[in-house]
């Protein structure tokens, strides 16, 4: 089976007056494990359902393996979907659940049984075929749902929040298993999640979505280090965001609180940009006299083990700074004054 790419171009979708998807275009490469990441209501699940045929685009095309599938009904699309609730049919045994898609394809009985065995073997449930779904644990049910979908050898695999119904401990294990399975099958897979950690740990690339718009597409590291806008910066990891504006002919960014940061030559600063930096990219030091850099008062101190997170009040703003902790370090106390130094290249100027 050769993997098929997915290409979504210019998709708009509205339910009545609310626009769920706006001009969405995404290219997923063959064999890629790709995530749709965003807060609830961002349109990621709708986009997934659109690929599966459960939602209709007002405009735009969806192609799988170079073929436009926009007009096909769900049952002719050959895109396997694992539902968030798993949607295992309670009146059928595990085997019958897994056999369902193969029977619908009118495969010979022997072929059906062989492929059911293979699919159950793949997910490590060969021994539980005769159970009813209600007799399985949540993790096992999830694997049945996956087995049922991969048994039909779909062109692409769609996973709708596959880990959300599992407890935290199991999630880490299952996401690795999903990645391994996807690599072994070499199947193009889309993974919908609102959890950045899930997306970061197992996905090749991520599309970050908000309010129906794709904000940025990239590898986890690209998105974290080079967020395209404030939403992406804030959604992936924590970030300090300070309002302000350009002064001195665009060479310096001055925050609302009066702090000034040099803008490196050639940097594009969008309109109504904010100064953005990660807490671990700043360092605290003794207060200097020039008062032109960033400085403020420690108002919170949280000991997190490997790091200490300080809350620094700078005028009306409050920023977070993470300092690595080593035994014996002296910590700053609440009320102390401190200067904040940004690592080279850490300052980003991002618009909404």
């Amino acid at each position, binding site marked *: 089976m050769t993997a098929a790419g997915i290409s979504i171009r210019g998709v708009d979708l509205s339910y009545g007056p609310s626009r769920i998807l706006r001009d969405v275009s995404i290219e997923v490469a063959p064999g890629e494990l790709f995530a749709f990441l965003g807060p609830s209501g961002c349109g990621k699940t709708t986009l997934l359902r659109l690929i*599966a*045929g*459960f939602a209709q685009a007002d405009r735009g095309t969806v192609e799988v393996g170079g073929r436009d599938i926009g007009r096909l*009904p*769900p*049952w*002719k*699309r*050959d*895109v*396997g*979907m694992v*539902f*968030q*609730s798993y*949607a295992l*049919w*309670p*009146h059928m045994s595990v085997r019958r659940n897994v056999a*369902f*898609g193969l029977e*619908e*394809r009118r495969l010979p009985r022997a072929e059906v049984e062989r492929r059911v065995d293979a699919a159950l073997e793949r997910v490590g449930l060969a021994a539980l075929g005769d159970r*009813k779904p*209600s007799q399985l644990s949540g993790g096992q049910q999830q694997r049945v749902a996956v087995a*049922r*979908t991969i048994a*039909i050898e779909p062109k692409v695999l769609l996973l709708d929040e596959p880990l959300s119904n599992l407890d935290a401990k199991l999630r880490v294990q299952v996401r690795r298993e999903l990645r391994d399975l996807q690599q072994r099958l070499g199947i193009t897979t889309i993974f919908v999640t609102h959890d950045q950690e899930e997306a970061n740990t197992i996905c090749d690339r991520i599309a970050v979505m908000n309010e129906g718009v794709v904000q940025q597409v990239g590898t986890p590291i690209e998105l974290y280090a080079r967020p395209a806008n404030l939403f992406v910066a804030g959604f992936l990891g924590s970030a300090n965001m300070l309002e302000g504006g350009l002064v001195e002919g665009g060479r310096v960014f001055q925050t609302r609180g009066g702090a000034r940061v040099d803008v490196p030559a050639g940097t594009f600063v969008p309109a109504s940009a904010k100064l953005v930096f990660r807490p671990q990219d700043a360092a605290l030091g003794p207060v200097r006299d020039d008062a032109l850099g960033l400085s403020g008062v420690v108002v919170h101190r949280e000991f997190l083990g490997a790091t200490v997170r300080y809350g620094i009040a700078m005028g009306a703003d409050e920023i977070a700074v993470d300092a690595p902790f080593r035994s014996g370090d002296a910590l700053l106390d609440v009320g102390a004054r401190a200067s904040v130094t940004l690592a080279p290249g850490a300052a980003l100027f991002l618009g909404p």
Partner: protein
Amino acid sequence: MRGATPGQVAAAALIAAFLAVFLVLPVGTVMYVAFTEKGTGAFTLVNFADFFRTELFVRSLWNSVYVSAMSVVWASALALPLAIVTTRFAFRGAALVQTLGFLPLIMPPFVGAVAMQLLFGRNGSVNLLLDEWLGFKVPFMEGLNGVIFVQSLHYFPFILINLSASLRNIDRAMEEAAQNLGSSGLRLFRRIVLPLAMPGYLAGASLVFVKVFDDLATPLLLNVKDMLAPQAYLRVTSIGIADPMGYVISVVLVVASVGAMWLSALATRGRDFSTTQRGGGGLARRQLSRGEAVLAWGAVGLILLLVLSPHLGLLLLSFATVWSFAPLPDGYTTAHYARVFGESSTYIANTLVYASLAGAIDVVLGTAIAYLVLRTRLVAREWLDWTAMAALAIPGLVLGIGYLRCFYGVQLPGGQPLATLWIMIVLALAIRRLPYALRACHAAMQQISASLEEAAENLGADKARTLRRVVVPLMTGGILAGFVTSFSTAAVELSATLMLVQSNSDAPLAYGLYVFMQSAAGRGPGAALGVIAVLLVAACTLAAHLVAERDHRRKGGSA
């Protein structure tokens, strides 16, 4: 963990005593009499041997089974299209179906039976027209057919309600997963939707079977005597309460009721198919094409016309001067209503009193039992619940026979037997309807978080005051729903009443209806009384619905 207070123990003991005297004792007595030798009290199966040796009884048993099964078949044929069209398609008439589809339940089936005779009987409107235009007649109402026809029209809402609910409860993802794997159309319906809706269907179907099996008045009014319930009634009323056959038949009725419920429970065991999960929200509704819409409206219209025909017939009959051998009445008059209000207003007054009292007893008992079961650690508290629910499996006829047997010998100070006192009718009605009220109260109390009560106790209210000031006000909607269900079904109940009414002055509306309907001359006033009964129950149901809505809104739709 809470211990049981003396008050709770006393309440439990009172309820237990009530259930023991008015449910367990009468039913137990019926069983005892059926299995013992007359006079000596020795255990015997002779009565049952007699039953199975008597050709009439065996035929009656067979007829009852046949009529009940066929009623289920026809009721399913009516309910299935309505349930599917309203739950699976974007159908404009869904609200209409949901309202009109439940109308049959607010009228006792035997009331409709007379109207049905006039519409569908051998010389009824439909057959007269058929004969005139096409030259043949259809024996809709001949013998057992008539009972099946009337019962399936009357009881099909039970299947409609249960089937619609379970269709609605199917998670949309269940269907989408099947489509995703390549299934569609009828095949998807047969392999996924239908099996998932099966528990709801079976619950409704078994209810229809039991109701039809136990119904006494409809076959009697249609002059079908060779069925079990009429046989039991006729034995007791013509031969007397000492004759063992009435008791044997009662036992057979109870066994059939319990058996049907047990079978449906068995068939659905381990299949908790309420599959809706968060983000699920019922099956997708498909748009109807133009042709499909015409077809759907046609089918729904035809079914609703059929379902409403007893009501229409009754209305016509209540205003008719003479209606016989003609498609429509010869003339119209309001004389029947005048007569009913003039001389039969005691029936209406009695009904209001009996049904209100029964409803009140039910909600008090229901609330108390629900409280004891859900909120206390009393030993064996579930037994109260189970015993009260067991009334569901006891046909009204059996309860009536039991009351006669147990309480006829108890003499009141005036020399009158206790069994003939009107209060016994109220108690029988209360016991019969207790399960409905109990479930409503139970559900209402379950939705109240225990922490609300703990907060009241923490602020100094004792258990009784907490119950009165916090729990009961929060349960208002549920209690009211329970009251109205009990009230409106008690208002049209006949099978227990028929055994217990001793004089016309004590008789409720349903009994009066039955008396009127037995003579041709009484049909007009009977129909008028029937219309009044329907309006009464409809008004109560509507009022309850409105109050429940308001209650729901008041609590912010969260309860």
